[in-house]
């Protein structure tokens, strides 16, 4: 089986390529023109250099391909930049896929596409998707629209689509996650220190995505990709501070207090500036909720359909993440 991986040189993409190689897949890695090719890919991975935002001939990327794993997305920059990197790039990529014979598509989305304000005690695949998207940040807007575009193309062209929605993907060099709060100088503000984190270690996440490629029952399904929900903000932040040797103080702030301040700021902004008002993400109540809301997360559907269990437990994930610091 030959798999095309977009965003192949990204944090998650590289791990997916690694695991596909270990399982004997033939791989075409789509990477940006100026990106350097990882040494471990030499003679093992076919490289297709293209920037999805502008590359003229994307159709040839699909020649001889059986399945596509689409991880390419913008993760930084303003709204326009992230929309171009995630949505317009995907639109152009899928326009090319329409002109190919490829039908199998695994799209890597995110938990940010859900309407967190409507998640009650637990968030699972039945939680409604975000509908008031323009109150959210650039990343959420782009990911919601990216998933919309993918779903529409798949429906129109009868593709075999699986959507994977990871939580906070973490691992080596990427241990600082938004859910653990913010660091101001030497102070870590932990919003809801006992909140459970939807963690997805990069090794586990890639393993789960490769499992979806191999599972016919995954076709037409969406999955929330989390290792579990046992780890809470306090523990994660403590491990992070300890293992990165960063000094500082933890200042726990109850979730409801933080949300109350954010709601007050949002109401004030709306009263004075209407819809035009712009607030930092910590003071925009809907954005605050999507980062820190204390709900439970389930990977039950992954277990039932993909028969998947995370290969690494939390201790092994910590060792894998911080091994270069020992």
């Amino acid at each position, binding site marked *: 089986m030959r798999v095309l991986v977009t965003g192949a040189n990204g944090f998650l993409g590289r791990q997916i390529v690694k695991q596909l190689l270990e399982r004997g897949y033939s791989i075409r890695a789509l990477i*940006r*023109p*100026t990106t350097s090719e990882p040494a471990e890919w030499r003679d093992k991975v076919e490289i297709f250099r293209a*920037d999805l*935002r*502008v590359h003229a001939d994307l159709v040839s990327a699909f020649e001889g391909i059986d399945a596509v794993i689409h991880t390419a997305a913008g993760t930084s*920059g*303003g*709204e*326009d*930049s992230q*929309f*171009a990197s995630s*949505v*317009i790039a995907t*639109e152009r990529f899928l326009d090319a896929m329409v002109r190919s014979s490829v039908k199998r598509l695994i799209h890597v989305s995110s938990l940010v596409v859900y309407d967190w304000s409507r998640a009650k005690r637990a968030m699972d695949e039945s939680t409604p998707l975000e509908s008031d998207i*323009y109150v959210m940040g650039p990343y959420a*807007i782009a990911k919601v*629209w990216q998933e*919309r*575009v993918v779903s529409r193309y798949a429906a129109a062209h009868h593709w075999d689509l699986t959507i994977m929605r990871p939580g906070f993907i973490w691992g080596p060099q990427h241990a600082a996650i938004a859910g653990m709060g913010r660091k101001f100088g030497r102070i870590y503000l932990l919003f809801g220190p006992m909140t459970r984190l939807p963690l997805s270690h990069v090794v586990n996440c890639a393993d789960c995505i490769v499992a979806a490629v191999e599972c016919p029952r995954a076709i037409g399904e969406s999955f929330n990709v989390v290792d579990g929900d046992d780890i809470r903000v306090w523990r994660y932040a403590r491990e992070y501070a300890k293992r990165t040797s960063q000094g500082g103080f933890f200042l726990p702030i109850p979730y409801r207090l933080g949300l109350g301040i954010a709601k007050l700021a949002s109401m004030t*902004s709306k009263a*004075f*500036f209407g819809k*035009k*008002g*712009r*607030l930092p993400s910590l003071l925009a109540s809907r954005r605050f909720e999507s980062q820190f809301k204390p709900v439970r997360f389930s990977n039950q559907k992954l277990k039932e359909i993909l028969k998947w269990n995370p290969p690494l437990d939390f201790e092994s994930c910590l060792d894998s993440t911080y091994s270069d610091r020992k």
Partner: protein
Amino acid sequence: MKKLKGVIIGCGAIAREHLTALADLNNVEVVALCDLSAARAEATSERFGIGKYYTSYQTLLNEVHPDLVHITTPPSSHFPIANACLSAGLNVICEKPITVEYNDFCILRDLAAKNQNMLMENQQLRFHSSVLRIRDLISTGELGEVVDVQIFVAVHGAAGSSYADRNAPHFSLSLRGGMIGDFLPHIAYLMHIFVGPVSDLRTVWSKRIVDSPLPADEFRAIVIGAHATGDVTFSGNAQPGGFWLKVIGTRMQAEANLFELPRLTFRRFRAGEPAVMSLIDGIVESKDALKGTVASFLKKLGGVGSYDGMTEMMARTYRAIEMKEPQPISLEEIDEVARLVDCFTRPEYKL
């Protein structure tokens, strides 16, 4: 009251600024927009509650008959779109620069004049509250006669900026001067406002980061105007970023950062004991800076951003259409600005 109809062609970042400004005008309704990306067109229409969206501007022009077309695409596409609009007898407001080449502008200018249509360039900094205030000080005589105008622009153009993205080349690379060319219209019309028609100039273009894809990342110019001199410094390397305008008069100096909202400071001639006057100067300047900083912060929270002047520009443009008055910036002045931009990039003016 019947509203004037506007349409937007091109739904990138600058289109959002047009739409935000137009939302403040109660005599205007944006009835349709267009973008090559269907997703971006739909997202923009959803966000701003606009009824129709298209992926072809020709189809839009065939189906909708607007009072004004906003062209907010990258510069290399301005000419064919503006040409199609003016040929169809439509009024146009185009993002700066109207055209990549001055000769193309001349074709549009003549077409607009022949058809008696509006051809406007977005020169929103002309209506920035700080610029309007400085112009007031000049017209009331408080600033005295303008002696010199200094413009200093610092924009991050090094590796990591969108201007230097080698994977998806920035649209400004289609302009002579690249990233700097994208800012030259702002510099040119501000110079024209304060120093008058330009009789001579000299420029220095250089590249501090040699392996950058930009044709240049540093630019200097000296301008001789009818009323005063001007000098320009553009740096793609200096930090922090900003767009500073300093107008030096015979009685007063006024300085503003046009990327900020009304952050304007003054230095006046004061008769009296120099040490005491210096202390008073410092206190007054600090007060002005603090007042401007707080006002700027509040305006940012209010979503105004660095596009102060856009709403005023749009309001005057639509008012001119409604009242059948001359366009708020005359074609002759837009022509002079376009010629100055052209001169900034011509080799014969390089030192």
